[in-house]
């Protein structure tokens, strides 16, 4: 390969035919190389370091974000767990309330029924008492009228009047 390259040179050699060109080329190369070492390498090194630092910072930031995200995830997971527990508690409370409400409604319904029965019983009893009282009053009035008539009829007899007075006198003496 080298032989091919050399053979392609203007003088057919590997080294250029003009030595000055080689010299100044080497000097220029050396200068450029030194300049590269003097300015380029530190700059590259600095750039590399800066890039490294930036990457490290970005990695650290990413790690921090990851940690934050993980914390957030943990928090959310915790909250989710709390929410589940809260939801379970709400459901349990709701069931308890529903059960209690059902029991209350049942008890109230039974009380209403009992109260209604008692009111009906009292009303029926009052109507029965009133009917009995009315009947009793009617019978008593008839009895009073009859007694009055019988007594007055008997008192028309003079001997009855005299006997009543004699009874009164006897009882006083008695």
């Amino acid at each position, binding site marked *: 390969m080298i032989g091919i390259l050399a053979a392609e040179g203007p003088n057919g050699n590997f080294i250029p035919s003009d030595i000055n060109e080689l010299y100044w080329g080497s000097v220029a190369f050396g200068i450029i190389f030194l300049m590269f070492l003097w300015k380029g390498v530190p700059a590259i090194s600095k750039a590399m370091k800066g890039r490294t630092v930036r990457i490290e910072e970005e990695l650290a930031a990413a790690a921090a974000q990851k940690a934050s995200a993980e914390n957030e995830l943990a928090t959310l997971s915790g909250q989710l767990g709390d929410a589940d527990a809260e939801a379970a508690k709400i459901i349990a409370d709701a069931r308890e309330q529903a059960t209690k409400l059902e029991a209350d409604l049942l008890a109230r319904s039974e009380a209403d029924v009992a109260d209604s029965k008692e009111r009906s019983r009292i009303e029926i009893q009052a109507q029965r008492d009133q009917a009995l009282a009315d009947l009793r009053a009617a019978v008593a009035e008839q009895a009073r009228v009859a007694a009055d008539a019988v007594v007055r009829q008997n008192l028309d007899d*003079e001997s009855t009047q005299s006997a009543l*007075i004699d009874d009164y006198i006897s009882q006083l*003496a008695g």
Partner: protein
Amino acid sequence: MSDTIDGYAEALLAVVRAEGASGADDEILRFAQALEGNDELRNTLSDPYVPAEKRQQIVEDLLQGKASHVARAAVSLVVGAGRAGELPAIARALVAKGAAASGKEVAEVRSAVALSDDQKTRLAASLKSATGKDVEIKVTLDPSVLGGVITTIGDTVIDGSVRSRLAQVKSHLG
């Protein structure tokens, strides 16, 4: 007993004794009892706007032929003096004083029919037996008694009337 009633009773008793009208006190008492039971008559004879002469004329008309002149004069005197309202008390005081003079108390007897002399005697004996007091019977006919007798001695009432028994029966009936 007020001094006024006592004074009138004393005065009338003196008149009755002076005139020797032993039954006049009974007649005065019967009129007084009739006055008690008749609101219209009592109001008329007590009305100060009715002239005294008019009131006395009413008394004369009512007692004419039914009472002695001593009784008519006594009642007329009381009514004319504007004391018709006090006449029952005066009459009772009169008979009480008359009875007390002979060591007796007055027993006012209300009956639907007249008592025979025998019944009066036995009643007086029975009342003495029951109360321990000698009594003078003053009988008043009162149809509202219906039958039997109601006796009043002072503040004591002994009710053996059919009216009260009938009232008791009516009360029991209802």
